[in-house]
């Protein structure tokens, strides 16, 4: 620490070539997407019918598109755009990687090819999105009757599951609490090697950063539901599996939040502590920790809040808590009982929301 500025010779040429390649790759990707979305819209509106005589469904259209041709064509266009960027104006990829050139900064978007490309791209995204997700407002507004049963059931909660529901609600809150509490110390320790500004000093520190960040990104990318399935087959069905699933996910999520907070600290006090001759741990304790404790607390309470919500879903697959008795009642269509449980969950989440907001307000 304190030795952050390490000078390495910078061979400008290969760096620039990498940037150019990045710009072309980015452009090729964007143009490919634009071309495919355009093709999708054209096919959908062309009125062509499939072999069964019916209109194509979204999946069928997606299956029909010429991905390879689009990619090749886009690559050619991207190359042309990047080669003649002086005449055509900077491409979107070039603008992102290398910045918008000086002489184009003051131009209105309508005066650049890039501006038009982005505008058309956004339009196409909405059209294609509408078609791919098969939005159908007509059905939405005319076919309500079937769902009315469910809504009626939810509006008339039955008291038969109230007792069981309350008991499992307590379990849910504790489940979320334990998962969060056990996640705090692990995330706290991992947050320091995961913070860029503390890990520039040495090769070891940079290695720790990469390992910690990669691992945490991976863990976070796996849904808590999947973690629940893993732990259920490990420790068996029940709340313990739920605690473990939420714990793993919370460690990764809190590490990210904590380390981002560390990255945004004021380095001044840290410099002052380094200057006294303090050791690395002392610098962290005096220069970093006091600055991050309040936001850490705030994030942690927020995380508990999230874990209460998540634990209901975890319960669906057998991770304990109120979700565990909700699932069979949904399957059997006992909407009155479902209504009771949903109200219990909603009430808890609403309360947790208010309480956590109040506490966080006080802390920060």
């Amino acid at each position, binding site marked *: 620490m304190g030795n952050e500025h*390490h*000078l390495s010779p910078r061979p400008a040429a290969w760096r620039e070539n990498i940037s150019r390649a990045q710009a072309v790759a980015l452009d090729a990707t964007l143009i490919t997407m634009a071309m495919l979305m355009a093709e999708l819209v054209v096919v959908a509106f062309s009125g062509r019918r499939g072999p069964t005589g019916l209109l194509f469904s979204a999946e069928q259209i997606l299956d029909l598109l010429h991905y390879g041709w689009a990619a090749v064509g886009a690559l050619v266009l991207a190359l042309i755009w990047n080669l003649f960027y002086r005449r055509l104006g900077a491409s979107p990829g070039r603008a992102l990687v290398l910045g918008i050139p000086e002489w184009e900064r003051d131009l209105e978007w309508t005066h650049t090819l890039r501006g038009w490309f982005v505008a058309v791209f956004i339009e196409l995204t909405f059209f294609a999105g509408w078609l791919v997700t098969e939005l159908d407002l007509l059905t939405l507004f005319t076919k309500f009757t079937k769902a009315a049963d469910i809504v009626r059931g939810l509006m008339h909660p039955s008291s038969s599951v109230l007792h069981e529901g309350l008991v499992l609600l307590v379990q849910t809150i504790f489940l979320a609490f334990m998962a969060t509490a056990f996640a705090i110390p692990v995330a706290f320790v991992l947050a320091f090697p995961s913070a860029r500004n503390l890990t520039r000093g040495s090769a070891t520190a940079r290695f720790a950063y990469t390992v910690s960040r990669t691992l945490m990104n991976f863990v976070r990318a796996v849904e808590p539901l999947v973690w629940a399935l893993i732990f259920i087959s490990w420790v068996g069905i029940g709340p313990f599996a739920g605690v473990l699933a939420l714990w793993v996910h919370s460690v990764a999520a809190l590490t990210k939040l904590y380390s981002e907070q560390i990255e945004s600290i004021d380095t*001044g006090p840290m*410099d002052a502590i*380094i200057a*006294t*001759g303090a050791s690395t741990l002392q610098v962290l304790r*005096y220069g970093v920790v*006091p600055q991050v404790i*309040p936001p850490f607390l705030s994030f942690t309470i927020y995380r508990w809040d999230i874990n209460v919500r998540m634990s209901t879903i975890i319960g669906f697959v057998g991770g304990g808590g109120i979700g565990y008795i909700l699932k069979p009642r949904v399957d059997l269509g006992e909407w009155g009982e479902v209504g009771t449980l949903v109200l219990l969950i909603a009430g808890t989440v609403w309360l947790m929301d208010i309480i956590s907001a109040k506490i966080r307000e006080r802390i920060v």
Partner: protein
Amino acid sequence: MSAIPDPVAVPAVRLENLGMVYPGGVRALEGVDLEVQDGEFLAILGLSGSGKSTLLRCINRLIDPTEGKVWIFGTEITALSGGALRRLRRQIAMIFQQFNLVRRQTVLTNVLSGALGRTRLLPSLVVSFPQAEREQAQASLDRVGLGDRGGSRADALSGGQQQRVAVARALMQEPRLILADEPVASLDPALRHSVMRHIEALNRDEGMTVICSLHDIDLVERYATRMVALRDGRLVWEGRADDFNRDTFREIYGEDAEPASNTGF
């Protein structure tokens, strides 16, 4: 610190051909040679961006210079690392333009943190300091006139008071050298002397060597025993405050500069 030779025999600071190029290629210092004798109050002048902060931070290695060497009381700090570097840093206190107190901690804890270099690791991690250190911290606060504010949170104090806490922290460190980086530039002009006088007292009464970057010629003339000037990362002038005149001013600050009316020439 038996590794450090007799202070009379060696200069407090010696810079040899010091140069600094930041990653990205910005050159902040070039070929700076300088000796500061023990007990001096040296002022560093220069425009913003002339390299004053970089120079000071190279002395205690908050920044690693890319060229040249730095000796502190005869020990080459640029050759040290790890524990040896930290032990030498104990001899060098630093006062910053932005005070750099730990805002959420009490004033007393901030002063105590000056002693971190000599306290045992584990007790210090739970903010537990020996009684003797606590008394010394209280005495340091008394000296800067804030003896009754030890229990306040640091950010509850005014700018001038915070900088006096920083001076107390520096005093707590028991250094032989103090680096002060524009210590009064963020303060109300009326409060500048209140801080400068305390730094002067450390120099005069405790015999601590002071290297202090300053903007204000008035302050330089009032407090410094010697001054040097930086321009574009090079040492362009060195002398006593009496030798300073309109021409040297132009030399340091450039042809377009105009001395403020109260500088006396």
